[in-house]
């Protein structure tokens, strides 16, 4: 296994594996099969692959009809087109009827880079978590991606899996096993907790490393299943560390940060800080430039932790 790999490459390879095992797997794409890597499946199983052209709404409807007829359907395109462009189809044709469609979208977030705001997906998690009945997963690396895709195929029901574009560092070893709905403690710690998803997990670990050298002992949680979320892990982190920072490649509102803050506000109020895209569209640029520009670098996580710790409540006891 290399040190870096793109999640979508892992997706493409896993699909082929699954296709060999299960004849009921059907794959759809919307004229982006070379980017989403469904082209690997298409090459091996041309009969079970349907390119729907640049018509995402129709693709989701076709996916639903196939699923209603017993197929396990994977439908792929860029995250922004898989959600923004066909939200009503996800709602009506897939989520509410609980059909067995796995929407696996690549090019999530702003590390899409130079293609600029039309191709950046910074609202897909707000959208998909607004669909009762839809499971939402954001793997942290290529290894977790392969696991999540397999887990999704093994479970009936609709699911959204968000992948990134670039090659990113692996945070897991080959033997890692993903469990839907469970947070993963990437690093223990008691002074504060960083809860991260996607590519931000690697950056959170980097930040925690640096904070450790300053004597700050940070817990790092990976929260691959954004919905249903691991409430217990969040409440525990709030209780045990008294401060939480969330980190996500998404708008500040509507994604991980707001989900965690609602749980914290309800069960265990503690000060929080949010590492996310502030309320703005991102511009063109290299992925690492954009992460920096929009406040998503490891240093931003570090600063967020530093700022939240002094705000810890002197008394966390409930009346």
């Amino acid at each position, binding site marked *: 296994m290399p040190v870096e790999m793109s999640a979508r490459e892992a997706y493409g390879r896993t699909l082929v594996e699954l296709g060999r095992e299960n004849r009921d797997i059907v794959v759809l794409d919307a004229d982006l099969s070379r980017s989403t890597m469904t082209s690997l499946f298409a090459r091996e199983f041309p009969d079970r692959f349907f390119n729907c*052209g640049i018509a995402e709404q*129709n693709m989701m*409807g*076709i996916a639903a*009809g*196939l699923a*209603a*007829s017993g197929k396990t359907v994977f439908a792929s395109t860029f995250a922004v087109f898989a959600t923004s462009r066909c939200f009503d189809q996800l709602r009506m044709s897939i989520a*509410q009827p609980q059909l067995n469609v796995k929407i696996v979208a690549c090019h999530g977030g702003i590390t899409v880079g130079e293609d600029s705001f039309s191709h950046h997906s910074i609202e897909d998690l707000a959208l998909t978590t607004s669909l009762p009945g839809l499971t939402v997963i954001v793997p942290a690396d290529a290894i977790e991606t392969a696991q999540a895709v397999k887990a999704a195929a093994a479970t009936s029901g609709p699911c959204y899996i968000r992948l990134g574009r670039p090659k990113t560092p692996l945070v897991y070893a080959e033997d890692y096993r993903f469990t839907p709905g469970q947070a993963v403690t990437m690093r223990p710690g008691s002074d504060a907790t960083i809860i991260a998803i996607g590519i931000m997990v690697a950056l959170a670990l980097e930040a925690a490393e640096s904070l450790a050298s300053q004597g700050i002992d940070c817990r790092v949680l990976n929260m691959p299943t954004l919905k249903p979320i691991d409430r217990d892990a969040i409440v525990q982190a709030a209780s045990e560390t008294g401060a939480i920072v969330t980190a996500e490649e998404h708008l500040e509102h509507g994604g991980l940060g707001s989900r965690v803050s609602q749980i914290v506000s309800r069960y265990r109020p503690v000060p929080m800080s949010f590492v996310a895209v502030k309320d703005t569209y991102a511009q063109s640029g290299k992925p690492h430039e954009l992460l920096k520009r929009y406040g998503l670098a490891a240093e931003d996580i570090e600063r967020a932790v530093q700022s939240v710790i002094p705000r810890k409540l002197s008394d966390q006891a409930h009346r």
Partner: protein
Amino acid sequence: METGSSQSKGTSRAASAANISAEAFASSRPGEELSLEDMEQMARKLRRHIVTMTAKAGSGHPGGSLSAVEVVTALYFGLMRHDPANPNWPDRDRFVLSKGHAAPLLYAALAECGYFPVEELSTLRQIDSRLQGHTDRTTTPGVEMSAGALGQGLSFGIGIALAGRLDFQPYRVHVLLGDGECDEGQVWEAVMAAAHFKTDNLVAIVDHNKQQLDGWTRDIMNLEPLAPKWRSFDWHVIEIDGHDLPQVIAALETAKQVKGQPTVIIAHTTKGKGVSFMENNPEFHGRAATAEELEKALAELA
């Protein structure tokens, strides 16, 4: 696949639904062999159900339900192989109601077929009823698709048709669309894709009642000429009088013979058909009859 048992299943339902020659359904013999009179009577019964249940509910969409009565009658009591005792029978022919606001019509047909008790129709739109204001796949036996947001049914139908082809299933898929619904771009995405995928097991039926919610389609968003549009997307087009049962049946039979391309049946209809004061009256697109109006309507449909 249970192709062997499929015929008996299909016919057993049909036989119970009305006194119609059983083999006609399982074979692909044209509909004129059926007892047309029974179908006509069933159509009238469905109309009575429609106006009654919406009046009882105090809301709902009688206009666009009434215009498609003959189409749905021909499908559920004629052409389609299906099994009310086993709504999920994999071999069943499919009916997808894309214009989900015509739910009262579909509920009436399903009830008369025996998917659920006819009495249940009076629970339409009430809390905890299985008969939701718009069709809901998760609650109503026999309903294939959750609908109500227009424009999504044809795509769904393509998916079912492709699955049938992959599994060498002989079933056919019928999708009922509104004419106003054809304003939606997703419909044209699906029109293009169905032709591209050559889903000849798919039939679209446009309930061409010339009205949408705000009024006449020619005033709101002109669709005409409709047939050339579908033809230019490489569909086989059949135009019929959608209230003429023999024409409906013949069109559906013809569609079965068309190979290599999907078929659309443009059914020229009248919105509110059968109830004089509802016919071509946009008000009754989305309003139910009052008690008084109901009485008048039922008298006309007696």
